[in-house]
């Protein structure tokens, strides 16, 4: 399957096309693009769209919360800064924090 257009993906998942475009802008569900520039939703994106309501309901989170969680995943500097703020210290430069996580992952692998 190459993927569904916005209209078909919306019909399949119960979100409006406008909402789908919002979710893309917020970095939550990111479709690929056809050669002519149309949004194409694959199985992964369709599954994300279907399970998004359940995620919100179970943990009582808003879309903006999920969008921020996505930013934390994408932006290591932001994550490191939030981590050290929560820990109540920003003693170490952010890259040291990142280095520690990387090496912990290596040892856990």
């Amino acid at each position, binding site marked *: 399957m190459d993927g569904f257009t916005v209209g078909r993906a919306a019909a399949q998942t119960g979100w409006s096309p406008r909402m789908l475009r919002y979710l893309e802008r917020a970095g939550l569900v990111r479709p690929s693009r056809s050669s002519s520039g149309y949004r194409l939703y694959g199985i992964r994106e369709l599954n994300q769209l279907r399970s998004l309501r359940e995620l919100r309901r179970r943990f009582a989170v808003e879309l903006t919360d999920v969008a921020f969680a996505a930013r934390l995943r994408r932006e*290591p500097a932001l994550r490191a800064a939030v981590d050290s703020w929560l820990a109540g210290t920003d*003693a*170490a430069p952010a890259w040291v924090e*990142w280095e*520690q996580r990387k090496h912990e992952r290596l*040892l856990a692998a």
Partner: protein
Amino acid sequence: MATTKRHDVKDLSLAPEGVRRIQWADRQMPVLAAIRERFEAEQPIAGYRVSACLHVTTETATLMRTLKAGGADVVLCASNPLSTQDDVAAALVAEYDVPVFAIKGEDNDTYYAHIEAAVDHRPHLTMDDGADVIGVLHSHRREQLGDIIAGTEETTTGVIRLKALEREGALGFPIIAVNDALTKHMFDNRYGTGQSTIDGIIRATNVLLAGKRFVVAGYGWVGKGVAQRARGLGAHVIVTEVEPLHALEAAMDGFEVMSMERAARVGDIFCTATGDKSVVRGEHVEQMKDGAILANTGHFNVEIDIPALRALAVETREARQFVEEFTLADGRRVYLVADGRLVNLAAAEGHPALVMDMSFANQALSLEYAVQNAAELERRVYPVPTEIDREIARLKLATMGLEIDRLTEEQERYLASWQEGT
């Protein structure tokens, strides 16, 4: 000289500043400079494609220039998305014709896309600082494993991971573990970390070390460096250990050796350098004197049991920058430096370029060795060959203007016959 090759850096207009700073680092790296001169003449890695994944810094730029001088076709990506120096990345692309894929603060997707871009270079040789390129090649780019002669790994944790792969028979090409080289260890751990650890503790606390009881946990390379430097500043140094040979060495080097349980009661300053967790625990903190200072210079902030320390405290506050004060129930106060993170990086400036000179000299000569010995190398993790270590020591001595003696023919014959006779 502008390049038209594929690259991804923040802003090429930053190049002139990068060039200036690379030239400065270059002057602090005489061993690599000597290697570069020879590489230029001999072209030992001519035509080989190299994918390097290292911190994109001025020191790394000097290594890239050295490989390039040796004829290699090299690309560079970052081994940490937050340590990239954008001006250096720009200078490598615009001035030194080395394609770079690295932007400071890049998101995770871009970081990994940049590692993929380095792998797209179809390397014959790889260089890693934390096994990123090796990891990609061993997962979804396995079809390229056959093209690779060898790779180098800079870090201990990377080597631990690669040795595990070797044991499983899953290592796809030979690896040279640069961290094992004596000329790396000696400078990086003993002298580099040894000095910057003390530097970090002093900058953070402004404590006078003379006359203090300074407890060093762990008498490995780093612990030795810290212990010797603390003693040089007039501290009374106590060593704690779990390994009998290290403990014996510490005792014979003239340090007091005791258990942490006893050291906890007498120490003024504690510095962990073990690589293990919970070396300083709640039960130790309970015994400590008022005003005790705790710092860590091991990789991770787990050597001091910080949750236990928090649990014991009735009050905490920032005593000064990098120093947190914990008040215990009976009013005693204990001070934690830099939240128990690597004190030399958190509160001081890490390694000077001169230390990186030795590490990267090992990287450069290890690649040359891999090319020369490609036929014999198996899919194993190798230490840096002793002859490379010795060559780097020779070069370093030469840059210091120091001469050493040579064996006379008679001495060589004598040693040879002695060795044959045994």
